[in-house]
């Protein structure tokens, strides 16, 4: 265990190294660039490779290639870059390629304000790639969580053979905080399952009980097939309902049925709360500050904070808001994730508090809206 004083971006990079990163490919984009620069300086000394590509499209495709060569691989970007990456994200989902993508949100649409924050992209990150799938997305609220959730992102991506997204923002990216760093064996690191059968019996997409197929990589003699077309267990293209249904449902279910392994959320004083605030990422810090303030004035307010944004842990959400008279969803955008909350909490009064603030919504700004309802 050691103490460091790092920014959110540094912590993501540091965590990636601890998790066993061996390949980073990227294209510079504010406010994610420090992840790239930190790794460019450190990763080569740990036996890894860092490459700058001609664009984000090349970067994520190279990451997918490196992952199939057996390396833990990642990239980082922001909105405009992520928009370019989504086709390959769909490829990673289809080919069950482990990788981590750090998405540091900035104010948009389009070029927006490159250095300033917002949480506009929580729906885009979930739905931008084509096809049907479940995507694993974590949202940290502190530098420590940037570190912890990045390690978790790598572990989940290796365990389930899925791309995992770490959703940060410009504010978190650049704040400095104390971080406790633990390395293995103090922290557990998961590596992908390898085939247990010889080549002639190996099928690259034949799942085990957990719906995850063991992964042979290039150069290991298994003659793997990475296939972007709809494929059977051998990786052979088959345009039939039977194969399509089996594949798509397995890709969805391998995330949903393993939800207990990936779920992560935090609550604060929800047990007796009349009002529960729901917030994620840097905005949750403001909601938390407000709750501490209101509690000191005797108002019973609590916080539910999903760290796993997608797929939302519906059971945890329901349990954490069960006694609340009203639920408030605070976001640094026009109010988008609230739709997901309202979908689950159909019988509750769910109030959206959308605050666009290029730094982070302040507790006062939140209370300004909230006081009308309590």
């Amino acid at each position, binding site marked *: 265990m050691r103490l460091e004083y790092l920014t959110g971006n540094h912590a993501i990079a540091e965590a990636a190294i601890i998790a066993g990163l061996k390949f980073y490919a990227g294209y510079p984009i504010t406010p994610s660039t420090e992840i790239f620069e930190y790794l460019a300086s450190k990763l080569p000394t740990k036996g890894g490779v860092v490459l700058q590509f001609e664009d984000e499209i090349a970067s994520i*495709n*190279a*990451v997918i290639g*490196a992952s199939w*060569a057996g390396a833990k691989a990642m990239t980082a970007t922001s909105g405009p870059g992520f928009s370019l990456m989504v086709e390959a994200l769909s490829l990673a989902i289809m080919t069950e390629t482990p990788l981590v993508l750090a998405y540091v949100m900035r104010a948009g649409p389009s070029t927006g304000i490159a250095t300033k924050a917002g949480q506009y992209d929580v729906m885009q990150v979930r739905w931008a790639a084509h096809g049907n799938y479940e995507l694993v997305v974590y949202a940290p609220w502190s530098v420590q969580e940037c570190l912890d959730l990045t390690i978790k992102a790598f572990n989940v991506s290796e365990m389930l053979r899925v791309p995992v997204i770490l959703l940060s923002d410009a504010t978190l990216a650049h704040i400095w905080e104390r971080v406790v760093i633990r390395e293995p064996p103090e922290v557990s690191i998961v590596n992908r399952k390898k085939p247990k059968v010889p080549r002639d019996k190996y099928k690259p997409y034949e799942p085990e009980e957990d719906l995850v197929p063991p992964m042979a990589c*290039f*150069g290991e003699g298994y*003659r793997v097939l990475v296939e972007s077309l709809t494929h059977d267990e051998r990786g052979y293209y088959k345009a039939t309902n039977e194969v399509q249904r089996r594949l798509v449902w397995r890709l969805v279910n391998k995330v949903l049925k393993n939800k207990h392994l990936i779920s992560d959320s935090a609550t604060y004083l929800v047990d007796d709360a009349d009002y529960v605030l729901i917030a994620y990422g840097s905005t949750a810090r403001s909601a938390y500050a407000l709750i501490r303030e209101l509690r000191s004035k005797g108002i019973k307010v609590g916080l539910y904070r999903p760290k796993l944004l997608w797929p939302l842990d519906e059971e945890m959400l329901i349990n954490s808001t069960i006694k609340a008279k009203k639920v408030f969803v605070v976001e640094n955008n026009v109010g988008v994730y609230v739709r997901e909350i309202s979908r689950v909490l159909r019988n509750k009064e769910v109030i959206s508090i959308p605050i666009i603030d290029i730094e982070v919504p302040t507790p006062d700004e939140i209370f300004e809206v909230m006081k009308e309802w309590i």
Partner: protein
Amino acid sequence: MDIIHPLDRYLRTDRLPHIWCPGCGIGIVISAMLRAIDRHISEGHFTQDDVATVSGIGCTARATLYLNFDSAHVIHGRAIPFAIGLKVIKPNLKVIVIGGDGDIAAIGGNHLLHSARRNMDITVIMVNNMVYGMTGGQVAPTTPMKVYTTTTPYGNLEYPLNLIKLVSSLNTNYVARASVTHPHLIERYIYNALSRDGFSFIEVISICPEVFGRHIGFRNPVELFNKLKSMIKFKAKPSIDESDIVWGKEIVLGEYVNEYKSGFIKLLYGS
């Protein structure tokens, strides 16, 4: 898998016959590529397990479905970056990218340019049939001027891209042009490309009787084949200046760049 044909050990024979139309040149290229690989393997330079083939989307890209190597059939235009990811992590792999002119030169053009600039240690084989085949005959950046396609119904107004000239202008080790009318040359050039470090690029002029042939009035594979053959000139040391493809007149085959500079991998890892 039953091995009958001498190249069957490199094929997933249970998936044959392949999807390519009768007389399509892609099969000729793949056959020549496998003989080149076979020669290297029989000479002990590498093994079948060391070969990785990567392709994007398109008729040519379907090749990886049939190849009995570690293979990847990824997304349109992005085979090269995938291949680079493979190569830098497993430098011992012989990484071959196979694609059509749409895949490699149009949507993937930027990756071609930058991987050549890096002298990245991969071999790119571009099968140029001068048209989009899989989607039914649209104009490609390689389509000759004036040619009718389904998206240029009044004739193509654009100059075709000369890939030989483009790639030769970059920091690459090997640039050659072959043609399906001369399978021995395809084999020799691929063999030569795989014998060195750095970036190697082979353009193979091919025939697409079903689509391109139909557009230009040569629906019969043999007639189109013979038409192409009539334009082909081979030169032992061709100059870049004569690399423009003038459909109907002259297509010069040969090794345009033939060097042995250190590739990217050597710079990255040392020797």
